[in-house]
């Protein structure tokens, strides 16, 4: 078993990994930027060493420094978390070359799955469905139409040099095809000076569904069921859950088997995620593989009973995994909400600042993976995700209800967070029905961004009380010649109170 692990990351995921290290009796080493000196993950670790620097580039991406620290402090492994160096094949290689264990897949698997075209070819070769389409641009309309018929309508015609919707056409039937290709080509020619176009299957009512896989030291691969991640904003996941309301046992078995084939195809080791798109006909297509721990891994942990970081460490140590079979029965249902230091009322503008008060939600079914505490300063230098709130329920409804309850009681002062927005997502009928697509936020934005009016009068009432209190204090101050005045509340608030 590994003895001491350096965590080359920060925030909630660094803390998450440190906790499992503690629970397994393994030493943990934090490295930190100047900004992060006072962060919880630094004081939670057994050891901590400064990287210097402020930006990610100056700190968490400084591999050589990280490797030097790992060697100097006697760590025998490096856990990269997610982001930063986690999908950097060269780093993975450098760790191994330094005689340390990289807690993640071999460099070769990272490299293969990091290259979109190569990964796509590999998946096709291993019978994992990908979104059908032409690899290269087509210029001959008839050839293109033949491909479109093979793929099946609707298809997208996309400018090879394109972007921003220019030179793009949605084609629903064969009759529209020729005209659409010509129109797209003309538009592309005039916009980009290149009239060549691709053909791609149009995924209708897409859902983002991913499978967690684990491959042990011998390459034996199991899956731990799916995560539903369709609630996205600008391609960033916002809410995740497991299981998905869309999948039945048959589809789960098919997708799970495809996920295992995908992992085996790249000779994977450790924990990884196969992302799929599923269309309205429940056809699924490989999107990409994330060769690392996923932000949303806790929902899988709650429905499987596993600690995925522990599994990563066991696999990296060459020990057997806890499970040897894929997950077929879920223990209830889990939902995760990502808490960002952003202001949803102002187009999700970052909200840096100091957390002046923090009281997290607790009680039945609530888990939090937080990276901050009261007094933490949220800077502009790193990802604004400060915490993940995860609710477990015996069924989906209970999990959602618990999440709403927890979001409503979560107290955080000094910065804006996405909590008001998340409550609206959780309460939205489309979300509650389980019937939604990756377009959910765009589709329902009117409802999701309308301020709640339920408690508006109560808020106004309190503001008025504070206003009157402050004014009367000023008045007293003036009349009593600058002497410190007492709050009027002390005298007024009880007098009318609770008499009725």
């Amino acid at each position, binding site marked *: 078993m590994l003895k001491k692990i350096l965590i080359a990351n920060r925030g909630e995921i660094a803390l998450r990994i440190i906790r499992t290290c503690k629970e397994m009796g393994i030493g943990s080493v934090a490295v930190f930027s100047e900004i992060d000196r006072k962060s919880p993950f630094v004081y939670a670790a057994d050891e901590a060493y400064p990287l210097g620097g402020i930006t990610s580039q100056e700190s968490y991406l400084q591999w050589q420094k990280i490797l030097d620290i790992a060697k100097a402090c006697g760590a025998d492994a490096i856990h990269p978390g997610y982001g930063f160096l986690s999908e950097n094949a060269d780093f993975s290689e450098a760790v191994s070359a330094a005689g340390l264990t990289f807690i993640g897949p071999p460099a070769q698997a990272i490299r293969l799955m990091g290259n979109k075209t190569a990964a796509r070819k590999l998946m096709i070769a291993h019978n994992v469905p990908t979104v059908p389409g032409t690899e290269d641009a087509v210029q001959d309309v008839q050839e293109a139409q033949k491909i479109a018929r093979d793929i099946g309508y609707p298809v997208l015609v996309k400018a090879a040099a394109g972007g921003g919707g220019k030179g793009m056409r949605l084609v629903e039937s064969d009759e529209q095809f020729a005209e659409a290709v010509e129109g797209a080509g003309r538009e592309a020619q005039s916009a980009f000076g290149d009239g060549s176009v691709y053909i791609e299957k149009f995924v209708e009512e897409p859902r983002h569904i991913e499978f967690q896989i684990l491959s042990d030291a011998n390459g034996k691969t199991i899956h731990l069921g799916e995560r539903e991640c369709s609630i996205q904003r600008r391609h960033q996941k916002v809410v995740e859950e497991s299981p998905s309301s869309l999948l039945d046992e048959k589809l789960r078995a098919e997708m799970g088997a495809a996920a295992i084939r995908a992992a085996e195809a790249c000779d994977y080791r450790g924990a990884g995620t196969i992302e799929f798109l599923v269309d309205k006909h429940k056809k699924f297509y490989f999107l990409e593989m994330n060769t690392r721990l996923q932000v949303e891994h806790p929902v899988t942990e709650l429905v499987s009973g596993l600690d995925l970081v522990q599994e990563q460490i066991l696999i990296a140590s060459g020990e057997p995994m806890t499970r040897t079979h894929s997950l077929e029965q879920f223990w209830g249902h889990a939902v995760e909400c990502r808490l960002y230091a952003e202001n949803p009322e102002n187009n999700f503008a970052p909200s840096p600042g100091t957390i002046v*008060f923090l009281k997290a939600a607790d009680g039945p079914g609530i888990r939090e993976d937080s990276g901050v505490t009261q007094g933490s300063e949220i800077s502009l230098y790193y990802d604004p995700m400060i915490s993940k709130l995860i609710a477990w329920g015996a069924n989906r409804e209970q999990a959602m209800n618990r999440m709403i309850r927890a979001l409503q009681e979560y107290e955080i002062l000094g910065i804006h967070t996405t909590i*008001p927005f998340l409550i609206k997502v959780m309460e939205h009928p489309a979300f509650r029905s389980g019937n939604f697509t990756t377009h959910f936020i765009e589709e329902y934005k009117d409802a999701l961004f309308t301020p709640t009016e339920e408690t508006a009068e109560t808020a106004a009432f309190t503001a008025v009380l504070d206003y009157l209190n402050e004014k009367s204090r000023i008045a007293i101050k003036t009349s009593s010649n600058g002497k410190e005045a007492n709050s009027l509340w002390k005298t007024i608030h009880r007098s009318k109170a609770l008499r009725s």
Partner: protein
Amino acid sequence: MNVYAQFNEHEFIYDTFRKEDALHIVLDGQESAFDLAELGNGRYALIKNGHSFLIHLLKQNDVYHVHVNGAYYAISVEDERMRKLKELVAASHSGPAEQMIKAPIPGFVLKVQVEAGQVVKKGDPLLILEAMKMENVIKANCDCRVEEIIIQEQEAVQQNQDLMRLVTVDKD
């Protein structure tokens, strides 16, 4: 004395008065029995007609930032006297009012979307500020004309730095 609390398009008009040493607050003819207990750190426990709330309240630049049950409200409060005073000032003020658009956060000017002299409506995008790897659209907060563009694209700006000067467009 009337006190006005505004939140988005809503306005609540409270009639407030003191009688027998007690503060009375009336909304739409209904008086509220209330008990407000201060918990510290901007936290208050309010009981109003039997209903119980935990409220976070922070006053900043004359705006009350209030959290109740996970919902967030930005509320402006003024009383009769202040409102009348404001109206007098507005009436006596000649010529268009000037507005300075400032950077709400430190960032990087990705794109300027207007030109000097351009007339914009409230809510129109003025520029895109990148911060924390996110694009933030800065919008006009009134029907205005762009008087001066102070920054340039690709420029890094500090919080509260002046970005653009607008003047309100006379609606008459």
